[in-house]
């Protein structure tokens, strides 16, 4: 119960940051907090199952996916900074 409550608090904190922050890097960090909360829940409840080793493997794969998300997000951030845009409300077009 306490692990579940902690994960829900982390998800709420991350969502609040995602909704209120306008700087792209703060939005990315808020997404990291939300994903961290989800990953904590996965780890907390998979520790008690019989196939805990497989659960740890799944959590590792999720960790790799989140790292890939962070890499692409930060590359987009650097590309936007080169164009002089650091806030989400300054992005007006999504074009390749």
């Amino acid at each position, binding site marked *: 119960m306490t692990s579940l409550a902690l994960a829900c608090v982390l998800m709420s904190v991350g*969502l609040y940051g995602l909704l209120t922050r306008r700087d792209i890097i703060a939005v990315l960090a808020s997404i990291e907090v939300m994903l961290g909360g989800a990953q904590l829940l996965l780890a907390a409840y998979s520790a008690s199952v019989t196939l805990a*080793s497989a659960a740890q493997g799944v959590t590792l794969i999720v960790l790799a996916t989140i*790292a890939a998300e962070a890499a692409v997000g*930060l590359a987009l951030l650097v590309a936007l900074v080169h164009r002089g845009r650091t806030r989400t409300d300054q992005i007006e077009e999504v074009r390749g």
Partner: protein
Amino acid sequence: MSVTLLWWALAALTVAGAVAVIATREMMRMLLGLGAFLLGLAGFYAWYGFELLAVAELFVYVGGVLVLFLFAITSMGRDREGRSMERRLDLGALGISAGMGLVLLVALQSTLPAAPTAVGASVEDTAAALLGPLLPYFELAGVVLLVALVAALAIIGREDAR
């Protein structure tokens, strides 16, 4: 008793780091908060008996992603003004996020087991699981990482070509 105390200390570190991420104006302080949050997560993994996951969290996040964030921040602006961020209190967003947290808590409380007990998993068993039944997903994670790497290079390379 001391184990419970350790759990609450980790929870305090993790939540304080998360709050620092959304509440600070300075980017470097936000990064420090994110570092504390990630260290707290790694501590939780070790507490649940997932030593491999705790070490991977330290290497990949604290050692990799956090440095990547630091690199992005240093490339953003040299002056102090360029590294400060807007911070505002939005009661609507507060209500939405608190409501989502409550809905998650109520929805998951009925489906998840009551209290997880730390069993843990050895590195050998995890390796056997990753290279056994989880092999397709493990390979898929590798492909996702490769595609992300190529995408990041393509995004940065296109900006440099302009």
